[in-house]
């Protein structure tokens, strides 16, 4: 067990008054961190999945559907994370991010474009003077298997190239083997390296496996200063799932009540259809509430989702189905 001193997170770090009496203590040691995480209520997997299944039956129609589709579009982190990415592809994606449907300027722009660090500069210039942010994955994404030095260099690269947002991965091995102090310190260090950039912490819920772990990892990340907690890299077999997202939404809601600090949630990987996106929005609506129904607090990390949202949007307006080829591939 690591006995290295942890950076103290104090009330002052939150810069706010605590909203309720159930104050989260400042984390001074790994032992203390463990006791905080261990005191969190357990998650009953059967009940959690049943709740998700029930909320999945919500019927979103007519103007609610249009409103939700536009909201979902504005929450998309339009993502390309392939070895084969090219500057031209990134430029094209940025154009789409700013004007998802060039023929209809009432379509909102997406929240951000998400790329690898080496393409941040390209994305920044392509998005200059737009409202779309540039997000960069970092910290040896997606596996996180590198030394701390390399991870921080990776973050520095992204930030220096102008990334507004950094998506880091946690060390799942350290978390699963109980070295939570290490994970905590890593997040604190990355947060520092981010400077002004906002930090999204990818938990890789598919590798954490249990919902109890998802809840503990969410709290760990929030205590260490995450601005967002994010489900997945999109690079493993199990990506975002509604139950994992629900646990994270409960975590950010409870964290806000305990500390006054609002942390966002990003779901990523495998979300391809409007139906999927609306189901996540229902989870947000009925769990965390309206404060989280904004791109500031909820994001979809996705690529093909955007076109499906555009198709469904047009279908709602026209009353007839449209073709996928009506929209650009990226």
């Amino acid at each position, binding site marked *: 067990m690591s006995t290295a001193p942890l950076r103290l997170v104090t009330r002052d770090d*939150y*810069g*706010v*008054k605590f*909203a309720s009496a*159930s104050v989260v203590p400042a984390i001074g040691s790994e032992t203390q961190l463990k006791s905080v995480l261990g005191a969190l*209520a*357990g*998650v*009953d997997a*059967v*009940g*959690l999945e*049943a*709740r998700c299944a029930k909320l999945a*039956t*919500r*019927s*979103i*129609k*007519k*103007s*609610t559907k249009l*409103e*939700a589709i536009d*909201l979902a579009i*504005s929450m998309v982190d339009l993502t390309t994370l392939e070895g084969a990415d090219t500057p031209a592809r990134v430029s094209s994606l940025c154009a789409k991010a700013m004007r998802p449907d060039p023929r209809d300027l009432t379509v909102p*722009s997406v*929240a*951000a474009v998400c790329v690898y660090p080496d393409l941040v500069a390209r994305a*920044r210039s392509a998005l200059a003077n*737009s*409202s*779309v*942010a540039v997000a960069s994955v970092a910290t040896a994404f997606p596996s996180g298997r590198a030394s701390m030095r390399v991870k921080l260099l990776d973050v520095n690269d992204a930030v220096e190239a*102008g990334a*507004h*947002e950094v998506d880091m991965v946690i060390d799942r091995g350290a978390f699963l083997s109980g070295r939570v102090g290490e994970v905590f310190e890593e997040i604190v260090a990355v947060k520092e390296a981010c400077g002004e950039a*906002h930090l999204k912490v990818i938990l890789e819920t598919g590798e954490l496996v249990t919902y109890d772990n998802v809840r503990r990892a969410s709290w760990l990340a929030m205590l260490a*200063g995450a*601005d*967002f907690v994010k489900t997945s890299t999109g690079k493993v077999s199990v990506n975002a799932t509604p139950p994992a997202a629900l646990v994270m939404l409960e975590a950010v809601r409870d964290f*806000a*009540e305990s500390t*006054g*600090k*609002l942390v*966002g949630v990003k779901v990523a990987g495998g979300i391809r259809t409007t139906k999927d996106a609306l189901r996540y*929005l*229902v989870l947000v*609506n*009925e769990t*965390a*509430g*309206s*404060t*989280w*129904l904004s*791109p*500031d607090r909820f994001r979809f990390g996705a690529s093909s989702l955007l076109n499906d949202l555009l198709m469904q949007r047009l279908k709602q307006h026209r009353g007839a189905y449209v073709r996928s080829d009506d929209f650009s591939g990226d």
Partner: protein
Amino acid sequence: MARTCALTISAATEVNEHDLTASRLGSLEYDPAPESSAIAHFRSSYGLFIDGAFTDPSSHEQFVSLNPANEEVLATVAQSSREDIDRAVRSARRAYEEVWSHTSGAERAKYLYRIARLILERAREFAVVETLDNGKPIRESRDVDVPLAAAHFFYYAGWADKLDYAGFGVNPRPIGVAGQIIPWNFPLLMAAWKIAPALAAGNTCVLKPAETTSLSALLLAEILQQAELPAGVVNIVTGDGSSGAALVDHPGVDKIAFTGSTEVGRLIQQRVAPSQKRLTLELGGKGANIVFEDAPIDEMIEGIIDGIFFNQGHVCCAGSRLLVQESVADEVLRRLVRRVEQLRVGDPMDKNTDVGAINSAAQLARIRELTSFGESEGATRYTSSCTLPEKGYWFAPTVFANVAQSHRIAREEIFGPVLSVLTFRTPEEAIVKANNTNYGLACGVWSEKGSRTLWVAQRLRAGVIWANTYNKFDPSSPFGGVRESGFGREGGRHGLEAYLDV
């Protein structure tokens, strides 16, 4: 580098209590998503289903069946007289002696499978009929009542040719003609619970649905015709309490199965006592949901909500008493009240409705009366601020805190969307309080510690104990009560016993 982003993430924002309160309600207002009522085809009036056909009641007397959500008349239904009941029992007797008792188990199973499949084929229609007639949300009739009703027929179809292996000896005999009286809270599902095991075991039956909810049973009668079930094997007679009494008193009935109030159950038991009739009763309850401090809190809150607001609390096994460990009582109550505020109360036909209409004016009056004692006896009342429709019978979801064991709302079955919250300090105290009731139908235990759950469960006097869940039903699981909640089991292998001469 200058930043012009409007949609950036704002870091570590301060939030005040007001924002969080606002956020609890959510801001994505769902547009109405009503299921189409045109799917249900009601006749203007219904006769009695006797000997395989709809026939006029001898008195030609009809009464109306209302939609409790808007008080509109859906159809008129026949009032059975003593003569009609006699005709139905004779038809059942004839069918038993001439046909059904000679029909092999495998053959009986074919009919039951056929009924199950037909229910599923017409599931949407059944759901709409049930919701219009009963007032329950369409989501529940669609996702719970109708699929579970079909599941009971499927399940007991499987037993029909395997009775030798049910644990009651070789070739167990049926009882004969069963008189079955069912309540208005799960009209179709209760009909399935009664008819499926009776037919599987080789009995014939006369079923009397509740006065306010006859229509789904009458649709089931159409299914029985469609399934070509031999005439008289199932007879469905509608009417009020006098029809039920005539059925209970009829000398040609070999067994009475009743689900309903403890009050009526007691009367039935008295009337049946001097006869040779078998009797099973599934009566009221005042279920305790026991919450320990280590419970999985979010799922537990959902479980409490499901336990008391499912079907507007019109559930005999409803978790109407919440016993919560004192150390977490404030936290649980705060979350519970927040969640109650989120419940969507209104048009039962809307697919997003969580809580529908109270089934009848009489039931609404009873709920109002009992809850009025809550405040006068000193409990703290939280009522959802939801807007209730003007027409129809409605009661806003309500939670009473600071309830004492001696309060009427802690002792009497309210049978509505009303929860009484009590606290305890030790597991022993929880058990004493949970058992301090005349009822004994169901309890729930919420804890992440398995050994404690088992320790508590062994000491609770109730027919059903749920661990970390509530109101879960399955045809393979026996259901029934002890003490004033009745006797006899429905569901599972145990449910066969009520219809076999063993």
